[in-house]
């Protein structure tokens, strides 16, 4: 298990965390979508490498699903959505890149501390995959919390799901049926969210979530 195979698995899973940080750093929607596609590409590579290491051919299918849906179909669809909504040049006012990054580092540290303690006697490959997967999930949540635009919240949600797939491939034994159904449910969620985006837009003339607080009767 040690040696170059482990190093490559570690490298790919680590790159996924780095891509999550790159996502947090982007404040333009079109750049954000590009980074999301790259995120999914790294996930596909990582899953394919796990399939090779664990000699589990069904994981290759997961990798292909990640590649086709998340790296190609969803980014293309998202790009169309933002072009049709006319917000592809939008620069989001985020909480601030610096604080968001620091929070992200804190979350990564937290997930390492938690995961490395909890999974002390697990297989090393699964263990580091779980630690990285938890950080990707937490970073996706952070992305959803710190963004105001609905489209980037959707991207946060999708990257969170990437983290879940990474965790599932690391811990051997997720059946193929479950995997496919998860992939399709995410796709359906994406479609639903896409429809909702247009509905929100029709209703409120914006996809900025702060505008919606006003309609709910909250402050401002």
């Amino acid at each position: 298990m040690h040696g170059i195979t482990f190093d490559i698995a570690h490298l790919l899973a680590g790159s996924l965390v780095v891509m999550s940080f790159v996502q947090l750093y982007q404040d333009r929607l079109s750049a954000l979508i590009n980074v999301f596609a790259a995120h999914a590409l790294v996930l596909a590579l990582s899953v394919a490498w796990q399939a090779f290491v664990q000699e589990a051919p069904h994981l290759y299918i997961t990798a292909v699903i990640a590649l086709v849906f998340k790296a190609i179909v969803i980014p293309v669809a998202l790009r169309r959505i933002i072009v049709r909504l006319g917000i592809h040049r939008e620069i989001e006012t985020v909480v601030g890149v610096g604080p968001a990054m620091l929070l992200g580092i804190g979350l990564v540290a937290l997930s390492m501390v938690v995961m490395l303690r909890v999974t002390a006697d697990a297989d090393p490959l699964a263990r580091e995959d779980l630690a990285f997967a938890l950080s990707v999930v937490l970073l996706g949540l952070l992305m959803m919390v710190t963004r105001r635009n609905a489209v980037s919240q959707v991207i946060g949600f999708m990257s969170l799901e990437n983290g879940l797939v990474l965790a599932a491939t690391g811990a051997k034994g997720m059946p193929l049926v479950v995997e496919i159904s998860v992939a399709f449910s995410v796709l359906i969620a994406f479609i639903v969210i896409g429809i909702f985006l247009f509905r929100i837009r029709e209703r409120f003339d914006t996809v900025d979530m702060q505008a919606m607080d006003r309609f709910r009767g909250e402050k401002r």
Partner: protein
Amino acid sequence: MAVIRDFAFQGAQMLLVLLLSPLLTGFVRKVKARLLRRQGPPLLQPYRDLIRLMRKDVVLADNASWLFRVIPYFIFAATWIAASLVPTFQSGLLFSWSADLIAIIAVLGSARFFLALAGLDVGTSFGGIGSSREVMIASLAEPAMLMIVFTLALIAGSTQLSTMAAFMNSPEVGLRVSLGLGLIALIIVAIAENARIPVDNPATHLELTMVHEAMVLEYSGRHLALIELAAALKLLVYLSLIACLFAPWGMSPPTAEPRLLIIGVAAYVAKLAVGGVLLAVFETAIAKMRVFRVPGFLGAALMLALLATLLRFVSRSF
């Protein structure tokens, strides 16, 4: 006999870095000019500039203090010391055992501190702007640099550059995500420290954009020559540092065997040339950043270095 030989090698390295550094600056300028389809100054132009400046008289401001006159010599000396400590063509040189990577950063940091003081000394507004910007950049670049050092030291098990280079050359390094992150962070810090393009433009005297040039605006004659030489040396130090830590191939072990030494020198010059070309291509491809975006750029370096340290703990726990 062995001591004399050690001194000879150390002296050779100190001369080599001193002689090569203006050439490296000229080389980067030449490549940049060629990329812009200009003829560009000849490769030896920096040497001519330095000789010309050495011959000229020094013009001092009336209210310049003694510090202002001393600082160029100090900056040059500090940078040269740092350059003599980084292994270039041979590892395990005589001086390299007296100081580690943290000491090199401290020496470069004190040189920067005195340069900022010199910018403030005469009391012109340009010097003040330059110093305040330089200190802002430094306050972000130095923590990032220290985090990089921590990561590398945790991986290599030492802060001694010769030991680190030997470790990086051995097959037990493997493929590590922390090292990749550290490399990117180190490149960002090197660009910021050397006042290269996304952070500062080394070729301009436009007041809104300059950092390094603003601080040295009041210097002339041999003082300016020393500061320019120190700046060239600093670029060489950072390139050598990156080459020594991340590409230590071909570096000669501490022997006197001529074949290994020739390979070492050739590899070093080749690494510098590759680094210079990459720097020129990068500088041509990217636009200068607004000063207020620099913290974001350097913050990314700090974040990458922090992340590298964290990921290092994950890989170590197995």
